Structures are given as C-alpha cells and as structure tokens.
C-alpha cells in the first residue's frame, strides 16, 4: 500500500535523527518502541496494529498536509521528503467518526505529546501538537475540543520553555499593546462570570470564613494573615458577618496582613495596595473597624515569620487559599515556608483550601497529567451543565481563567516531574502537628445550601472531621480543611 511505504520512509528518517539506537528492523512498530519511556508500553500498543496505525494515520492525514521539513530537520536522507498524503479516503473516514472517537483521539494525542515531552523527544512532541491543533478549537466545538485546545497550548509553552521553537499560539489574547488594557477588563468580567456560574470561589471562601467566625466569637481583635489575597473578595463577606454578629463583643477590629510578592503576575487584578484600598473603603462603608498591612515575601517567595507585625491580644488566623481557579500556582517551597512559619506563630486557626487531586499512586508525570486532564474536564463540564446556552460567557471564563490555570498546573507538574509525589497540604499540616478543628453543622449546612444554588451535580463530601470537599459528579475538585495549633506548643 502506498501509505505504508510512506510510513516506512518517514520512520526511517525519524529514527536516525532522534534516537541513538538505530535499528535495522524497519517495522514501524518496533521503531516506535525506542522512543517511549517505560511508563507507556508502546510495545503492547503496537501489537494491535489497527489502533496503532490509526493513530499514526490520524497524525498524517488531512489535506492540509504535514511536512517534515517544518520540524527543522537538517539532516539529509534520500527519504526525507515532505509527506502530503492524499487523504480522500481518510477524510471521508474522519467525517463518519463520532464525537467520542474524536475525543478519544485527542486524549491519545495529548498523552502521546506529554509522553514525548517527558522523554525529551521534542520533535515528536511538536509533530503531535501540530496535529492536535488541527483538531481542537478554543472557542467552538465541544467541551473536549476546547479543553484539549488549552492543554495543547499548555504543552506547547512547556515545549518552548524547554527548548525553543516558535510555533503559532493557538490562543491569542490580542496584540501586545491592547493586551494590558483588555486584560484587566477581561479578568474582572471573567471573574464575575466565574462567581456567578460556579461555586468554586465561594465554597472555599465561605467555609473558611464560617470557621473563622466560629473561632473568634469572643475576641475583640482579629488578625488574619492571608497567603494570597488576590482581589480580596473573601474578606468582604467576613466583614459583613463580623459587623452583624450577635454574640460576643460587637464588631471586633479586623486587621489583615497580605503577603506580597515581587510580581503579581498578569492575572492579578491590580496590586496588593489597590486591594488594600478597596478593602478599606468597603470596610468603612459597612462600619467595620479595619486596618490593612503588607508583608513582603523574599524574592524566592519564602515566608519569614519575623517580618510579620504582631500585636498582643489578637486572635491570629492563617488563611491559605491555594489554586482556586483564578489563582496563580505558587511554588511548593513557598507554601511550605508559609505553613511552617505559621506554626511558629501559634495561630488560633489555620484555614486551608486547595485543589484536590485524584489518587495517582505511581503514575508519576503521566499519572498527574491524566489526573489534571480529568480535573479540568470536570470543571468544564460543570460550567456547561449549569449554563449550556452561554457559550460565549463560558468561552471567556475558559480563556481568561481556566486556560492559564491549566498552563500553570502543567508547568508545575512538569517542574516536579522527577520528585516524589507531593501529596496534599492538608496531610502535610497533619504531620506538622496541627490539630484538626471540626467543621460545624452550620458550616456544612452553608456549604450544602451554597451548592444548592448551582447545579445539582455539585456535592459536598465530608472526608474527615475537619475537611470538606467540593465534588462535581464524583470527581473531587476542591478541599477545604481547618486546623489549629496544638494546645501545648511553646513559642
């Protein structure tokens, strides 16, 4: 078959350029084996020739053609020609395939690309990403297509970050000079939409706030150290609750110290100072005594407890929101320094909200990659389920908030690919010696009511006395846990 010959030609050229172990055996299946890492057993895949062939064919087909020369192969072999496989029959094939098949194919390609990236096989990764880009679309199509678009984009930037190459970005945010100005408007609108369409932000905030309220019922002064304050919306509802509380001293003084970093990243809505101003204005508008402070982190984002200004008689609360949809991913070392520094301060309460990953076991990079794919797939689905008609609104949220989140997540996974499974921060707090604080009936009730405002696919799961998890249809997404310092620790 003509196509088969083309394959043979193609793989020959690949194998000489990319792998050190050449092989006399020109069977494509065998050659393929030399690229894969032990994690994915390409051997077993290749035994089922049809599936395998289909994958390759899907990479090669399409009238748009697929040129080896694009990859910047410098070597010259007589077989290195641009391969434009005429695909009349192929195209017809593709059209009759169902959505599921396409989705599955995209997943396979993503896996293959991630795998190639892991194995430092850049050219193969690029090839696969090119093919992916033809299949996906960030604004039209199904959830899977859009999700795959963002994952493709994320993998692309990982690829570029680790070794150059300038492919066209799938998702453009407009020309540079417009970008800054549009950015903030986009970000705000997208954030508001996210708030309206999903409980992801409110769940963590409200659970933490309720726990804080219960912990400080008899205090006159409250001091909250916020790891990542962003736009400060969490404290708006806390202030409202403090102003209208019935037990204990009325309207206690609230002091918030926000940790600030060198650069806030393009997704932040203004600087920490602006957040402080906004909160101060809001507090005065509802009559909440309030003061705002900043505490600078080191350049590597390490937290130094000594940099914090503490006042006697204050109830100290440590608030740590990690990886909410609109947050940037913070380096684990920074989080670790914050939480361990917090321990030395003997806080009244530690509130922790983090992304909940699935059980990964020994999956390593690929395992975490797939888990990330499942995670965001659930998020995309949850938005669609609630608002099936508002494609534009969802597309905006996906582009501005979730897309960068995916990129950040993959970057983090990639960076930590050779390290041990990092595990949950809540487990870490446990081993550090913090004591769990039970989540009250009122808090549970609030969470359930909150979710009831949205689609009924959301659920609250109680995984421990002090930990509740937000699920979307059996996929765990966000975990909120409450801790306190052990009673007899010394300062």
């Amino acid at each position, binding site marked *: 078959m003509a196509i088969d010959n083309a394959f043979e030609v193609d793989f020959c050229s690949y194998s000489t350029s990319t792998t050190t172990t050449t092989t006399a055996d020109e069977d494509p299946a065998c050659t393929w084996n030399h690229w894969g890492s032990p994690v994915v057993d390409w051997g077993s895949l290749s035994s089922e020739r049809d599936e395998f062939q289909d994958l390759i064919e899907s990479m090669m087909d399409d009238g748009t053609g697929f040129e080896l020369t694009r990859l910047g192969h410098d070597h010259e072999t007589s077989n290195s020609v641009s391969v434009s496989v005429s695909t009349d029959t192929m195209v017809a094939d593709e059209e009759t395939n169902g959505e599921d098949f396409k989705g599955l194919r995209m997943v396979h390609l993503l896996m293959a690309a991630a795998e190639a990236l892991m194995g430092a096989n850049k050219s193969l990764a690029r090839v696969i990403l090119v093919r992916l880009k033809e299949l996906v679309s960030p604004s039209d199509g199904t959830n899977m297509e859009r999700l795959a678009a963002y994952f493709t984009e994320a993998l692309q930037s990982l690829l570029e970050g680790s070794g150059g190459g300038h492919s066209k970005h799938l998702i453009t945010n407009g020309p540079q000079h*417009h970008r800054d*100005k*549009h950015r*903030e*408007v*986009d970000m*705000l*609108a997208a*954030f*508001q*939409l996210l*708030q*309206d*369409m999903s409980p992801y932000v*409110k769940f963590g*905030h*409200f659970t933490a*706030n309720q726990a804080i309220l219960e912990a400080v019922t008899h205090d006159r002064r409250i001091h909250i150290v916020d790891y990542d304050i962003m*736009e*400060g*919306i969490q404290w*708006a*509802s806390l*202030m*409202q*609750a403090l102003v*209208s509380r019935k037990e204990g001293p009325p309207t206690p003084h609230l002091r918030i110290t926000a940790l600030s970093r060198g650069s806030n990243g393009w997704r932040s*809505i*203004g600087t920490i100072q*602006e957040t402080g101003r*906004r909160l101060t*204005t*809001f507090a005065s*508008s*509802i*009559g909440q005594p309030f003061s705002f402070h900043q505490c600078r982190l080191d350049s590597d984002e390490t937290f130094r407890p000594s940099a914090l200004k503490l006042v006697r008689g204050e109830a100290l609360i440590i608030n740590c929101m990690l990886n909410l949809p609109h947050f940037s991913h913070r380096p684990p070392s920074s989080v670790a320094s914050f939480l361990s520094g917090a321990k030395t301060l003997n806080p009244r309460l530690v509130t922790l909200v983090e992304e909940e990953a699935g059980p990964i076991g020994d999956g390593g990079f690929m395992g975490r990659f797939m888990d990330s794919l499942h995670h965001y797939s659930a998020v995309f689905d949850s938005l669609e*389920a*609630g*608002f099936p*008609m*508002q494609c*534009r*609104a969802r597309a*905006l949220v996906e582009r501005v908030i979730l897309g960068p989140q995916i990129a950040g997540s993959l970057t983090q996974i990639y960076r930590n690919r050779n390290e041990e499974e990092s595990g949950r921060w809540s487990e870490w707090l446990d081993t550090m010696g913090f004591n769990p604080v039970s989540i009250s*009936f*009122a808090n549970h*009730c*609030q969470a*359930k*009511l*909150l*979710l*009831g*405002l*949205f*689609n*009924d696919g959301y*659920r*609250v799961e109680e995984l421990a006395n002090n930990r509740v998890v937000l699920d979307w249809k059996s996929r765990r997404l966000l975990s909120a846990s409450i801790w306190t310092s052990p009673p007899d620790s010394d300062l």
Partner: protein
Amino acid sequence: MAVHNERHLFLQGGHGDSGLMLSTDAKPRLKWTPDLHERFIEAVNQLGGADKATPKTVMKLMGIPGLTLYHLKSHLQKYRLSKNLHGQTNNGSTKIGAVAMAGKRMSEANGSPMNSLSIGPQANKGIQIGEALQMQIEVQRRLHEQLEVQRHLQLRIEAQGKYLQSVLEKAQETLHRQNLGTVGLEAAKLQLSDLVSKVSNQCLNSAFPDLKDLRGLCCQQTQPNPPNDCSMDSCLTSCEGSQRDQEIHNNGMCLRTYNTHKDPLMHHQTETKSSENKTMGNDDDDERRMFFADRNCSDLSMSVGLRGSFSQARNEEHSFLDVGNKRVDSVNRLPYFATKLDLNVDEKHCKQFDLNGLSWS
C-alpha cells in the same frame, strides 16, 4: 404523577396483603409501621446509607406493591433528618428515628411544633414522652439553625457581590480615564458587561420562573437592562428580612434596621458614573422598591419554594400568591420548607427547588 399514585392508593383501600396500612383520610396516608420501617432501613443500609439511597432504589429493593415514590420520598427525607440528629446527639437507636419522624409529621400536620402529646401509635412502644419531646426540641433547633445559615448565606453572597461591583467600577473608571478614545476597548467592555448581565439575567429568570410578570409588583418601573445579580440578591435579602419579620412579629423595626444597614452600601454605589456598568442608578431604585414590596416577595418566595416540595395541584400555588389569606399557612409550613432546603441537595427528585426557589439549573 403523585396525584395519580394517591388515587391508586385510595382505590387500594385497606388491602393488607402488601403489609401496607392505609388510612382513610381524604389524603391517603401510608402508616409506617415498625415492620415496614425496619424493612425500609434494611433497604437503605443495603444501598449504602441514607445519603446514597434514593427513593427509586429503595422502592425497587423493598419490592412492596403499592409503595410509591411519593411515600418513599418523604419518608427518606425524614429518615435523613433524623440521621443527622442521630449523629449529633449520639444515640444509637432506630426508635429515636421513628420518634423524630413522628414528631416531624406532626409539625406539618398541626403547624404547631410544640404540640407533641399525641404521638402516633408506632412510637408508643417503650418511648418516654420526655425523650420524644427532647427530640422534638432538637429537631426544631436544627431547623432554626438552618434558617439562620440560609439568611446569613444570602447576606454574605450579597456582600461579595457588592465588593466585586466596587472593584469592577474602580477598574472601569481607571480604564475610562486612561483610554479616552479607544473605541475597541469600549466595545469590548460593553460586550463583556452584556455577557455578564446575560448570565445574571438567566439566573434571575430561572430562579423565579413564574415571577417574571410578578416582578412588576416588586419593580414598579420596567428597566431597559435586566437587573444584575446584585439586585437579585437584594431582592432575596429583603425577602429574608421579611421572613424574619414573620418569625419575630416585629415588622417595622426589622425593616428599619436592615435599611440603615444597607444604606451606606447603596450610597457608595451611587458615586459611580460609569454608564456601561449595568445601570447602577436603576439598581438602587430597584433595591429600594424591592424593599417596600417585600411582602409580595416573601410570599412569592415561599410559594416558589413550596411548589417543588408539594407536588400538588396548581390551584394551591395560586392561593399562596394571594397576599392576604395564606400568610398563616406560610408560617406554619416554614419548618418543613426549611427541611426541604437541607436535604434537597442530595435528593434527585426535588430538583427544581432550592433556597427560596433560587435554582440555577
């Protein structure tokens, strides 16, 4: 479907084969004998507990002819409620559950929670009246707490909404100052505001599906732009405010304190001049008007809420909408209403109703 089933039962009358005891009320009521209840609990446990079991699966598992989803729905709900209490008060007897359920049914029937002396026959076996009373009080306390949580949640969501508004306004102000003449940006902003208000509008409309026309009662002026979720929240909050009225029977004071509480916020917002930002001026008036029309709001919210829970004939809804008469009924049904709130999240069958009918699905 429920009506049909009721009729079916009525026709079945007193056939005792299936072990079902049906009363001869106008509304056929199933008597949950201890035996039947035992079988129910068995089925529920087999399915993995009260939260995992659904009326459909329990019905299939129990396999009793004549036992309908309608019965199981309410029974399962009461069971779940008593399970909650069971967890809280650390009692390990299923009899307590039966008592709680008996108590619950009473509060619906009588509308007066403390009238607990005439407990149903199935609970008489070995239960002290004192214990039953205690359970009753516990149930009541929980329901009250749930109401509190509900109210606070509304206020908190509203606070967040207001804060976000102020952020949005400040940002747009700054941008406006910086970008005089950038046509593209203006268009983009309009587009985005449009998107946001569309989403909010959809939420608002689905929250009060039958109330679109009745909103005329609340808002005496039709607006060019649909109200954003800010005003929706305040509508609900003012409904909450009047709910509180009914509880403590002190109308004027409540509204007044709430009013002053909100005023600084509303004042804060009138400062902005940004016209793209979803007609803030209109929203202010909107909020105030919703305030004064809160009587209508509260009844509407109750009736919307109850529509899902009582799958009954249409005429009952309309009678709720009648402002004057049914107020008493609304108050009496309050505890049941609140219970529905908590458990509905888990329950697959009462989908359309949550939190004053504010459902975004």
